[in-house]
């Protein structure tokens, strides 16, 4: 069965709350953005997130975002950090620039090893 496209953040949150736990972390349905948008997101992560986290995501003023560094972290809270920022730290909210589903895809890919720009 092909994965359903999730369009609202609320639905993703509800699903994640109800789906069984896999590897100790709540499961999420991840949809890959269309290729053109995916390229924009990859660039944004490598270049703009990269200005604090390093373009190889090995950390800088901000922490490392490599699979090793993110191991065991809750993907939902990582996604929320991307979307809403983290108070009392320099991490800003990125929700003006991406959807909930896109942030979930970024977290998913960060935890697996983030792709390089084409």
């Amino acid at each position, binding site marked *: 069965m092909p994965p359903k496209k999730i369009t609202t953040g609320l639905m993703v949150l509800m699903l994640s709350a109800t789906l069984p736990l896999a590897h100790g972390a709540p499961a999420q349905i991840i949809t890959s953005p269309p290729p053109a948008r995916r390229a924009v997101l990859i660039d944004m992560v490598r*270049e*703009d997130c990269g200005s604090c986290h390093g*373009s190889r995501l090995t950390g800088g003023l901000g922490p490392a975002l490599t699979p090793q560094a993110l191991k065991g972290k809750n993907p939902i809270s990582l996604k929320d950090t991307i979307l809403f920022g983290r108070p*009392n730290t320099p991490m800003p909210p990125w929700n*003006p*620039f991406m959807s909930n589903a896109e942030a979930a895809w970024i977290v998913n890919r960060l935890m697996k090893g983030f792709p390089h720009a084409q």
Partner: protein
Amino acid sequence: MRSNLFVILFALFALQGCATQPLRGTGDLGVVVERDSGKLQIVDTTARTILGEISGLGDLSHATVVFSRDQRYAYVFGRDGGLTKVDILRRRIVKRVLQSGNSIGGAISQDGRLIAAANYTPGGVKFFRSDTLAQVADIPAIGADGKRSKVVGLVSAPGDRFVFSLYNAGEIWTADMKAPAHPVIHKFTGVGKEPYDGIITPDGRYYLAGLFGEDGMALLDLWHLPNGVKRILNGYGKGSRRLPVYKMPHLEGWGFYKHYAFVPAVGHHEVLVIDTDTWRQAGVIPTYGQPVFVVGQPYSRHIWVDFAFPDNGAIQVIDAPTRRVIRTLKPGKGVLFLEFTPRGENVWVSARDSNKLVVYDTATFRRVTELPSHKPSGIFFTPRAYKLGW
């Protein structure tokens, strides 16, 4: 016998052809960081061309470069802790050391003998001989809280001193390196939350650290260290909502006009004007976006500004006496950096997401040329060798 002579003559010519490069100086050369591919482009600011490329410099995200006092060698500080000495004339790497796990930048001493590298991991500053890159000193940045801190805002200062800030601990330290084996360190604690960058004023007297965690700056008078660090511009953003910051501003190369300094406001679409006699705010200039670099054009009344994401497709020119924006230019996407030729007739701009360098005539604001570059970030011209701070 005769044919032997021809062979020898031919061999001599061939050898000469290989060994002879036209003699040239390095004062009009520079390097451009191509950060994604770990390469440097060597550029010529007279011919406005790219002379060549050097690869194998590692992770160059947020890389910075300083120059030897003979302007022949570039020292490149990479994110991966790599410190690379590059021969600009021969266009090759002379020496490369991995000096830490994660680095942010560096500086060269007043006498040119020492290279200092500021590190995030492990937090601290390491010192190297500029000729051999042999390490001569290591200052771990352990704050008053007992924890290791990331180091930012490292500058060289008169008297073979270096000044830097501890991001996590909120401290400013000075290190006198006249005797590199025995650094003399002064620590100033509690200077403010999250100093993110530092600068030394052109007279070599004041060190200023921008504070990210609060509105304000920390000021240290290097002529009067016992007076300690003073807080200035307290609450400059008061009354207006601070916007999210998508790229940390830089303090290097502020604009100065008379006794006024022009600096980026954190989280505001503004350039702040500071009176350097009183260190109070003397004005605010609304801008296109949140400033990252605010750089004075040499021998000019103009100050140039670039901006943080998502407004990083434009640069603006401020007229310092009237404090007005007089031009908005759109060099390309993802503008990261501006570098002036030494006397200011041109400015080179890197447009990362457009994969090009754009050179402007500063008198007419017209594009002189564009040069291809893969994801360019920093642009560094060799006359930086003679400016204290870097």
